């Protein structure tokens, strides 16, 4: 990474930035726009599933809307409809900006975006008609998987070509994360699809591959893409340098080394060789190292400059998101310890940690990045700072409320399931009030996403005349030393 800061001057001027931005604008907006559609779609189905857990007769009598389909549809629509395209959009813009090259052949990327969404649509439709593969995170039937992989290969090839033509000098930390992410995703997805969906291997080995994929999808794909955005936006928004390139290196390599292995810890007690589970436990615990390295590095960078968080939507969302990533990794480490996971394994704590990671970290960070990127691509400011503020508070309250009640309820449920004298039925009765609150929290999250979709749509329908002031979500102090940071 960078060796001497003075050898890395800011070689990009506004005109070059504008040229680069306009060359990626069309595909990035396409990825963001479709992602936001799937975000709404997925979170509505998440709400439906959360209600069904509390009130099983909700919307019954229709095969399409049974719990087995709605919950799987929401997970996959959010993972492949929302999170992955959002990560791709962020990745495309960051790659072009950091490599300081204009995008060549943006039409192939537009095609990739369209193919990707066709794949997601086919996959979701496949689940609805009953072709779910029943493997968590890989529920899309085989015929959809091929389409998605084709689209992603187009994108990865573009990313690598751009990377090779880069004009920048030494690599910046975000570029490492981008390259890691763009390589990991096709590797994980192709391997797991081949072994589990296209030519399934012997059944006893399948859970291990599925757990490896689910762990890798988060730690090697979403986490690097979110961190790439955070490491770009935070120093830029507060106008400071990242504190330590050594800490960045520690975070990067420890994430890459341990991230892929951490998934299998959840198979504790399953019919698998013991070492698989133990490797997962060891790796999950070691994920505390990247968690601390990221937290310290960004904290030292921001120290004394947190004020900008109050008015800059991009900064507020990004910092909230990265903090939740740190908590996700630390909680996952604790939850993977055999003494803990033997109690919590089949409880709602798994749901809580998924929510914290996927929504609390990734979605929040992606929101922050989108709030930063889109005005630059379109030249328009966000139409309503009030709605952005609602978006932030609804999302944060929703995710924190759901995570805390599900952890609490999950503990009670876990101990009940563990106790041979307690019937399964009673363990369901214990968790009931917690699931009720979690369903309310899911409603808050749907509202948050709706607010976000409205702001995004408002920007495109030009609800605000160009040339107006940027949307700040709080009044910026008059004599503030901080940059505008939006």
């Amino acid at each position, binding site marked *: *990474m*960078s060796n001497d*800061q003075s050898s890395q001057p*800011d*070689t*990009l*001027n*506004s*005109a070059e*930035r*504008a*040229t680069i*931005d*306009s060359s990626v604008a069309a595909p990035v907006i396409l990825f963001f726009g479709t992602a936001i559609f799937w975000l709404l779609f997925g979170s509505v189905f998440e709400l439906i599933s959360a209600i069904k857990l509390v009130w099983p007769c909700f919307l019954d009598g229709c095969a399409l809307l049974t719990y087995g389909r709605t919950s799987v549809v929401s997970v996959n629509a959010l993972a492949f409809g929302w999170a992955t395209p959002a990560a791709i959009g962020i990745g495309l813009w960051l790659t072009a*900006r*950091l490599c300081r090259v204009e995008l060549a052949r943006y039409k192939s990327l537009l095609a990739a975006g369209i193919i990707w969404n066709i794949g997601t649509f086919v996959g979701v439709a496949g689940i609805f008609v009953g072709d779910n593969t029943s493997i968590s995170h890989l529920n899309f039937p085989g015929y959809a998987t091929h389409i998605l992989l084709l689209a992603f290969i187009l994108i990865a090839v573009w990313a690598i070509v751009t990377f090779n033509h880069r004009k920048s000098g030494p690599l*910046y930390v975000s570029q490492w994360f981008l390259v890691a992410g763009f390589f990991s995703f096709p590797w994980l997805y192709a391997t797991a699809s081949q072994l589990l969906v296209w030519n399934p291997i012997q059944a006893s080995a399948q859970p291990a591959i599925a757990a490896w994929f689910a762990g890798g999808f988060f730690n090697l794909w979403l986490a690097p893409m979110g961190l790439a955005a955070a*490491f770009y936006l935070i*120093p*830029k928004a507060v*106008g400071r*340098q*990242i*504190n*330590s*390139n*050594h800490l960045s290196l*520690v975070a990067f390599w420890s994430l890459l080394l341990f991230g892929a292995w951490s998934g299998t810890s959840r198979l504790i007690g399953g*019919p*698998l*060789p*013991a*070492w698989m*589970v*133990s*490797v997962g*436990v*060891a*790796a999950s*615990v*070691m994920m*505390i*190292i990247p968690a*601390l*390295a990221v937290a*310290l590095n960004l904290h030292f960078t921001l120290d004394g400059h947190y004020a900008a968080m109050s008015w800059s939507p991009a900064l507020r969302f990004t910092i909230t998101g990265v903090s939740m990533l740190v908590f996700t990794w630390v909680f996952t480490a604790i939850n993977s310890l*055999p*003494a803990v996971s033997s109690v919590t394994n089949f409880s709602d704590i798994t749901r809580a940690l998924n929510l914290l990671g996927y929504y609390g970290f990734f979605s929040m960070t992606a929101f922050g990045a989108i709030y930063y990127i889109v*005005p*630059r691509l*379109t*030249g328009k*400011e966000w139409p309503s700072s009030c709605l952005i503020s609602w978006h932030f508070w609804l999302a944060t309250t929703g995710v924190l409320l759901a995570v805390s009640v599900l952890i609490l309820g999950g503990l009670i449920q876990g101990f009940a399931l563990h106790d*041979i*004298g*307690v*019937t399964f039925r009673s363990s369901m009765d214990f968790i009931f009030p917690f699931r009720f609150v979690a369903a309310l929290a899911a409603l808050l999250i749907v509202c948050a996403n709706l607010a976000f979709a409205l702001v995004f749509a408002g920007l495109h329908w030009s609800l605000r005349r160009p040339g107006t002031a*940027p949307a700040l979500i709080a009044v910026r102090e008059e004599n503030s030393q901080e*940059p505008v940071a*939006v």
Partner: protein
Amino acid sequence: MTSHTPSNEPPNGESPAPNAPVLREGPEPSEKRAPVPFWLIILSAVIIFWAGIHLALNSGGFQANVYNPSLVSWSGGGSGGPAVAPDPKVIGKRLFSQNCAVCHQGSGMGVAGQFPPLVASEWVVGGAWVGDNHLVKILLAGMQGPVQVKGNTYNNAMPPWSQLKDDQIAAILTYIRSEWGNAAVPITADYVKTVRAASGDRKDPWTQKELKAIPAETIPAGGAAPAAPAAPAPAAPPAA
């Protein structure tokens, strides 16, 4: 950085004018070279060391056929051996609350006039002519018609429980025979199996009259094979 106005762009016509958000951007990010905090290095070393130890103790030698290596923890807890079979009374309690408590109540006292009590009932702990085989038979095929329990007559119907497995029935009966002050010998799954075999595929609920015609058997306190019929009933009809 100085803000560039559109006028100092390279004159290549097509490049768009920078918009306001781009113009207010700060410089591209870069990194300082602050050292890694010392305590983080130490902490990381400790975490990696712990992970190594954990792996060494729990990897089962990285063999494919070791599923549950000895989980030796620092506190010395947790053996890797096969899980200890749970106490049948605990399982019995759970099965009882799932299946029987609706009628006979968690207290085992039943409901006056409708559901007879199990506490100190001669059917449960054994009585003048009632044996352990009768108890198992009631469970397997159910019971109906007038029945005397502790001097009161009940006339109702109890559903059959033949869908439960031998060890489940044994666990329930062991539980009701040792709870609430009842103190009778445990019923084994083997014994349930013998009685089930002897009853053939009888589906109709028993009546007290029919049961009375079957000679009583009791499991001796040692829990071994059932003793010979207490009173060889003359010309007892074969257990249907």
